[in-house]
């Protein structure tokens, strides 16, 4: 009796495996590769943004009397982004890790959009071709970031769904497939950054 039950179980497992086995495994591998590819795309657009910053900072710093605090904020945020190192070729499996990455990048986003808002006060700076060019690039990069993040989330969703579906979900642990976390919308990301102007300081227009 005991052995026959064991045999039954084994038979069940074998039949399950043969039913779903190779095809499922290959499909999961493909989906996982897609997720990793999309992750690399996400990383590269974030890197592209980080690469723009030194140029932006030096252009803006050249403008007479530019608010120093805004610039320092951008530089600091850029530095903290550099500290959150994630493997660019493999999508993170740990949600907390991704959260940390997202938070650092979110801070940089906020600092950058604040910089752009503050620059409204410096018409001379905004009129220069180099600033306009940088702004165009920065805007384009932000658009790319949102597109690639969306693409990544779509890929993750497809992969996670495939993992959770019966009977794959009985096999995925055996092969070590793990669900991947998503990007989430940052709280307050849809709001424009808040900017406080200090009107006690001499305004840039008044200085020669």
């Amino acid at each position, binding site marked *: 009796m005991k052995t026959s039950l064991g045999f039954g179980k084994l038979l069940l497992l074998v039949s399950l495996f043969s039913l779903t086995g190779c095809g499922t495994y290959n499909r999961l591998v493909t989906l996982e590769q897609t997720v990793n590819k999309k992750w690399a795309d996400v990383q590269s657009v974030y890197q592209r943004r980080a690469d723009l910053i030194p140029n932006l900072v030096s252009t803006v710093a050249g403008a007479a009397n530019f608010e120093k605090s805004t610039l320092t904020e951008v530089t600091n945020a850029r530095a903290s982004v550099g500290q959150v190192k994630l493997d660019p070729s493999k999508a993170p499996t740990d949600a907390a890790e991704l959260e940390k990455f997202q938070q650092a990048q979110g801070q940089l986003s906020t600092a950058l959009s604040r910089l752009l808002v503050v620059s409204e006060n410096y018409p001379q700076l905004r009129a220069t071709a180099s600033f306009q060019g940088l702004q*165009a*690039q920065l805007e384009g990069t932000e658009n790319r970031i*949102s597109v690639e993040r969306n693409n990544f989330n779509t890929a993750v969703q497809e992969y996670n769904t495939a993992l959770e579906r019966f009977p794959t979900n009985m096999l995925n642990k055996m092969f070590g497939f793990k669900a991947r976390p998503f990007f989430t919308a940052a709280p307050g990301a849809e709001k424009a950054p808040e900017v406080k102007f200090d009107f006690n300081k001499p305004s840039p227009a008044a200085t020669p």
Partner: protein
Amino acid sequence: MLGASLGFGAWGLGFLRRRFLGPILFCVVLAAEAASAAEVVPPKPPAYFNDYANVVSKEKARVLNEKLAQFERETSNQVLVAVFRKMQSDSSIEDYAQRIAQAWGVGQKSQSGGNGVVLLVFIDDRKMSIQVGYGLEGTLPDVTAFDIRSRHINPHFKNGDYEGGLEEGIDLICKAIRGEYRGDGETALEKRRTSGASSGCGPLGFLVMLIVVLVIIRLGRRKGGYGYTGLGGPFVSSGWGSGWSSGSSSSSSSSGGGFSGFSGGGGSFGGGGSSGSW
């Protein structure tokens, strides 16, 4: 027997109602909500130059369309222009335009992900966007797109000169991306026509054709003998907005060197380009 089955039927109905009516209602409500909040991505346009807002003369539209078709024959780059009255979305122009460009699949997928450019104009919103496919981000970087948009198209648009702005914009976009890829003398649609004539007509294709023909015949009858003029050209305008029906006027045959149609190649867009208002 009858009573029993009736009783069972009633029970079955009740069961069905209890089990499924809730979810079905829920779905209906959800769908209605989604429809009211969601944006509308306009269907893929039939031509390279599509003026749904009637701001460009028919003659000019034909010339620009032909120019863009010829551009694809020479370079394989697809440049698509669509002028609409209004945005049908609550998103920003950047996001909306990217989704439209992606949905239309402008550009050949085989050329580094897509060598397409989409210029979208929304007249009433005073907004426009140049979306650049992955494969052209190198030759038409954001700065160039920004320059074309703000320094060359915007001044025309501000004066209400849409024709001039669009023409100059198209010229500059083509100039920027010429030389990146090489064409083979045919547009994607022409290629499909020549190569797919035999292979594309499987039994399913035949069935679809049959249905289309039947529907056309029915429609023709219902109209009581009037000719169905809208089908004169190679394409049927789907009538989005104040549809610009292409084939109904002079170019009624596809052979006579008339109208060149557009067919996308599945190109992808990553948000490159430049968007804004004028």
